[in-house]
Structure formats: C-alpha cells, structure tokens
C-alpha cells in the first residue's frame, strides 16, 4: 500500500532511456520541489483515522453537544458562538453517522478561513443569515435555545424548511469545472452547502484547513496521493488491449459462447 505513496522513481531526465518494461515508469525530476507528490503523511493520517474510526466516532457522538473547540481557538472571522452554529449546520449537511463527516473534517475551520480569503464577499451573508436560521428554529421549536443545541431531528426539520426549493432542483454540470456559486443571489444555506462540500473534499495538503486527515477523500474512496499507475480498477486490469473492430468482434462472440 505504502509503495503507491512513496515509490516514485527518480531518474535524471537526460540519462533516461526507457526500456519496454518500464515504459510507464514514472519519471519525476526535481522531486524535492514537488512536495505534493510525497503524500505519505496524509496517507498515514487517513489510514490511521479509518482504522481507529469506530472509537473516534463513538466519542464524538457522545460529545455531540459539548463544544469541541479548544478554549484558546482563535477564529479568523467567526465569533465563538457563530463557529458553534456553523459547525452544527455543516454537520447536518454532511453528518457524522458512523463515518467522519463535516465535523471531523474541520469544515468550520475551512469556512472561517474562507470568509477572510476567497469567500470574503460572503461575510455579510453569514453574519446576517445565521440569525435568520435561528429565527426559523424558534418558529418551529420555540423551546430550543440554538441550532447547535437542537436534536438532529429538529436540525433536519429546520434545514428541510429552508431547502424546499433546492431539494427539487436539477443538478447542473459544473461548467467545465469552473463551478462558481452565484453567491450574491443565494440564501446562506446554498452558500453554506457549497462551502461545506468544499471544506470536506478539498485537497487536504492545501493550507485551506479543510478535509482534515483526508477524511473526506477517504469517505468517497479517493486514495490519497497524486500519482497513480494502471490498472485503475478490475475493469481495465482485465482489458486485453485495443484491436481493430473485426478481430475483437470475433473474440467477443467466443466469450459470449462461454
């Protein structure tokens, strides 16, 4: 397993003459300046987390209503109270239901940093939108003090009442990957949803503070690391190679008889 993360053949470009057997051997030079390729530590982090997950999640669920932030946590944008609400909201979008969710991925830290960097234009939306969500909570559950103090069922009811339109929307392809929520026109929940997903699935090696320990990538089955060698799955492993259509048609017929 670790081979995949560490074994990158370092060969001087000039002196390298590819042999047939290592035609697909990775050729990387100047490895030192490409630290992104050496993802061993993140890999261990994710592996460790996965292996120890049952106990971690049990502890987390037990402590669900207890503030998890260190006392001296310094927020870049949020007040401590806001951070607690945002974490509860993000956790409702990607819950910790037996596997890591937004909470364990540190999504709230990602959003806190986002709001002083790439999402600086959304500050107002959070500052004004959070009390509105709180109001909705009070309409539905007058007895509950805050979103973070509500039960999971109550939280889901609040979000469902906010997301009526969105739930029926048709997914659209991120434009050639240039996905950009038109945040100015959107309610906080839409922006929060995008930020939560981003904080959960961002490359954990960035300094964005999201996807802690690579738990988001581990959940979706994206192996850590940034170089892979075929076969990529059982499907291409068993592929016999490309042939002109006539001979393959014959081969397929033979296979069908079996």
């Amino acid at each position, binding site marked *: 397993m670790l081979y995949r993360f560490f074994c990158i053949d370092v060969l001087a*470009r*000039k002196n390298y003459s590819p042999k047939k057997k290592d*035609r*697909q051997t990775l*050729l*990387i*030079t100047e490895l030192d*300046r*490409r630290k992104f*390729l050496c993802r061993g530590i993140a890999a261990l982090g994710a592996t460790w987390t996965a292996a120890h997950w049952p106990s971690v999640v049990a502890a987390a669920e037990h402590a669900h209503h207890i503030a998890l932030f260190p006392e001296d946590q310094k927020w870049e944008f949020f007040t401590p109270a806001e951070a607690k609400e945002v974490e509860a909201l993000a956790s*409702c*979008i*990607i*819950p910790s*239901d037996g*596997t890591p969710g937004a909470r364990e991925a540190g999504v709230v830290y990602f959003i806190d940093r986002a709001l002083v960097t*790439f*999402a600086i234009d959304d500050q107002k939306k959070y500052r004004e939108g959070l009390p509105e969500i709180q109001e909705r909570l009070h309409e539905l559950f007058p007895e509950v003090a805050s979103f973070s103090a509500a039960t999971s069922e109550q939280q*889901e009811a609040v*979000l469902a009442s906010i*997301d009526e339109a*969105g739930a029926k929307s048709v*997914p*659209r*392809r*991120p*434009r*050639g*990957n*240039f*996905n*950009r929520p038109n945040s100015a026109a959107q309610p906080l929940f839409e922006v929060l*949803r995008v930020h939560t*997903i*981003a904080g959960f*699935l*961002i*490359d954990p*090696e*960035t300094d964005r503070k999201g996807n802690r320990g690579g738990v*988001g*990538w581990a*959940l*979706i*089955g*994206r192996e850590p690391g*940034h*170089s*892979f060698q*075929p076969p*990529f*799955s*059982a499907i*291409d492993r068993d*592929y016999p190679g*490309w042939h*002109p*259509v006539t001979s*393959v048609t014959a081969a*397929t017929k033979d296979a069908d008889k079996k």
Partner: protein
Amino acid sequence: MKIDQPKYKTSDVVDFVIVGSGAAGGVLAKELSTNGFSVVVLEQGPYLHEKDFSHDEIKVLQEDQLTNHPKLQPNTFRKTPQDKARPQRALVYGRAVGGTSNHFTANFWRFHEIDFKERSKIGPIAGSTFTDWPISYADLEPYYTKVEWGVGVSGLAGASPFDPPRSKPYPMPPLPVKSNGVIFERAARKLGWNPFPAPMAILSQPRAGRSACINCGFCLAFGCEVGAKSSSLASMIPLAERSGKCEIRPNSYVHKIEIDERGRATGAVYFDEQKNVHLQRAKAVILSANGAETPRLLLLSASSKFPNGLANSSGYVGKNLMFNTGAVSVGVFEEQTNDYKGYAVSRILHDFYELDAQKVGFYGGGGLDARFDLTPIGFGIGGLPPGTPRWGKDFKAALAHNWTRTFEIFGHGTSLPVENNSFSVDPDVKDAWGLPALRLTYKDHPDDLKLAHWLAARSMELLDAANAKQKWTFPIDEQQFGVHLLGTCRMGDDPKTSVINPDHQTHDVKNLFLCDGSSLVTSGRGQPTMTIMALAFRAADRIMALAKRGDLA
C-alpha cells in the same frame, strides 16, 4: 533549467511582437525565434511554472489562478443585438504564459477533410454564414503532423476508420486505457460503432526532457506539474526562449495596436503590472490573444483611419462566433471504475462525424468521448444524480458510493457561424484598467441545439448498452458561456466576408497578422486546439516567407 532570455527595449524595433502566449502564440514564438527573427511575446497574465501549479480547487476554480478574472475583467451577455447586455460571466480563457493550453483537456482530434469543404457539399444553411475554408485539409496535414511530433501527442494511427489521411504515425502510443474507456469501447461495439484510443496532447512516454503522465487526476482546468500535458508552456515556450531571440514578457496587457500614417502597424501598446503604459515597437504584429480578446483588441484600436475598428472593413471582426455544441450524459455503475485516476479521456468515437441532414433533420456532426473530468469538490456540488438529497446522510452516502463509480459521456459537435453571435465591446461596463468590457451576444442556431439533443440520445443509448445503473443528461440550454472561442476573425479570400487571408494577414493592414481560434472558418467537431496549433505552424511558414520577400515593410 534557467534560461536567460534576451531583454529587448520597447524602443527596439523587433521583427515581431506577438500578443498572447497560448496555443497559437507559443507555436509562433518558437517557430519565428528559432528561425532567427527577434520576437517579443506580450502576455496578459503571469509567468507561472510547473511548481506554481497545484490541486487546490479553490485557487484554480474560485480564485482564477490560471484564467481571466471575472472581477477585474467583467463580461456582459445578451441573446440578440436588440437586447441590453447584462453583467454575467461569459467566457473562460487561460490568462498566464501558455494560455488556455495550460488547463485544457488535451483532446487532440485533427479536423477532417469535410470540415474545410462542407458548405460546398451541402449548400447554404438558413440563418448561418456557413462557408468553406480557403485552405484544405491537405494544406494543413503537414502541420498537423508537425504539432503531433512538435508538442507531443499520444495516439494510434489508423485506429479510426473515419480518420483523414496522415503522413506519419503518432510519435507515441496511446495513454493507458481507463476503466471508463473499456466500458465505453465494449458498449459502443455492442451497438456497432467504432471506438478507438483517443489522441491526447499528453505524453504517454517521457519525451524531450518532459515526464510522462503520472495520472494525478487533476487535468481539465489544472496546470500539469510534471510537464506531461503538451501545453505551449511545456512544449514550445522553452524552445523559443532557448533560441536566444525571444523575450516572453508577462503581466503585459495589450490594449491598442499602434498604426502609422501609412496604415501600417508599428507596435503594441500595453499596461505593465503597475499599469504604466508602454509601446513595444515591431516590424510586424501578430495577435494570438484568443477568439475573444483578438477581436476586442482590434475594436479597441479604432482610429480615424479605421473608425469601425482595426482591420474591420468587412465588419466581421468579432462576428460569426462559434462555441461548439456539447451535451453531457452521466452514468453510475455497479462496479468501481476509479476514473478519478488519470487524464480525462481514453476512448472516443467518430461514427457521427458527418450526419445525413436528410435523415436526422438538421445539419451537424460530432463525436463522443468517455471521461471523468470532475474533481472532488465539483463532483460533490454537481455530480450526483437528479433526485439525490442535497444534504444529510443520504447525500453523504451517495457521495461515498458514486465518486468511484461515475463517469460521463461527452458529445462534442459542430456550431454554425451566425453573424449576430459575437464578441464586441460593452458601451457601459469597464474592466479594472478602464477599458470597455467584453460583451457576448449569442443564441445557438436551432440546428446546434437539435444536434446537442441528438448526441445526448446516443450517449444515453451507449450508457444503456453499458448497463449503467443510473443515467441522466445535464439540461441542454441555449449557451450563454463559452470556452471554445472560434471564428471571430475568420479566414477567407474575399475581404468583404473575412478578416484575414490564407496567410493570416489582415486584408486591411499588411503587417498585422491574426492567428488563434478567431481564424477558424468552421468549428470542427469540438476539439479546436489541435487545429489552432496546426494553423500557427502553417502561419509561421507563411509569415516568414513574406518577411523574407520583404513584403512586410
């Protein structure tokens, strides 16, 4: 390797100033400088290197590290010339040394013979300025070969029964097949179609000091950290710099072409990073700024001598814009395919390259590919099937299940040139430099939309044949946004209906040349960069011949 570029003074009259360093500008810079001409390349964006590229989706897709910036460079959009354009992001192009070739998918299909002569074959089409090219596939063939061997293209010659003739095989075998390629190939053959290994401008073997592809999975929209993607930055710019005759000058935003009293170009006026204005003098000027910025620059260079914009006696500057038609269908499969590993496309087919309009009821043609070009965040936001909960434990379960089991069938096809479809300058909105913003006017020709639906239907048929457990097509709407920016200064023999002649020389200004997506007369079937690079290799030959004859003075 550190290369010492020459530093020219702006007062030096260099042989050529090239505006833009992308697919066309990079090739031209390399060809002209290695043939002894002095060249200054003015690039609007920064000079990024492999070490600057990353897999940070926020930096690349939200902060526009490699591309035009919507806040600094706003756009406006309207459907027809009668409408008032509203601010809206209308296009994405590469804004860094290497241009859009840094982040493209690297599908490198040659155009076929039909793409150059289709108007003659099928006759006029209502509502379109459809016309033939003044050059043929045979004229361009040697240059397609030059691209394949010069920048590095992986592929298998003769694999497609529809391929046009070629003078040489590919320099490298195809990249390793992906699981979606295997599924695509089997399903297509079941349907009697002819799938084949995709020609890709990505190295399958180490070549010319560059690494082979390491299958990192961050390809479309991202720069390649190992130089395996055959961008201008990886393949052409280093050769231009090594010639000792070419200076790449980044952060240089050209906003005017200077013209003397004889009506000849004398250089390019640009803002440097501090917004100071300079004039780089040159004997001839080449615009390779892309199909949006090249016409904009001509329009911004209007003067008393050229009141409708420079080189615009035809009135065609900025018009006849084509985006290519596209339709994307998605399948979720039972088995894991792990298509997040690797480059985007390993199998394509061209059975529908030339549809019979009598049979299908519209003009058009295209190809299909199998790909998974979504990166994790993009997938999380928009990659799950319709009807999937958007949050909560079922949303999370779908994320966990689908990421390794999803891929797309992408239909790529023709766009018809429509005179009203255009890039022009907005009368009200300005960019951060105080210059009029790009205004897009676009409404798809009805045949283009019919083609999109037709291609999507074939993709769904294929997903059925492949036993996809779930499948859907993203909504097909009229396009209001483009990345293929084609046809806006088209090539032609007639100065009344084209902007440049077959030598890429503007009909109106003898020493002003245009070469990029704007030069295309027809859109091809969806993969223009290969043809843009081939045109640039050819343009370099034509321009050098004129220069040697003393025809540019």
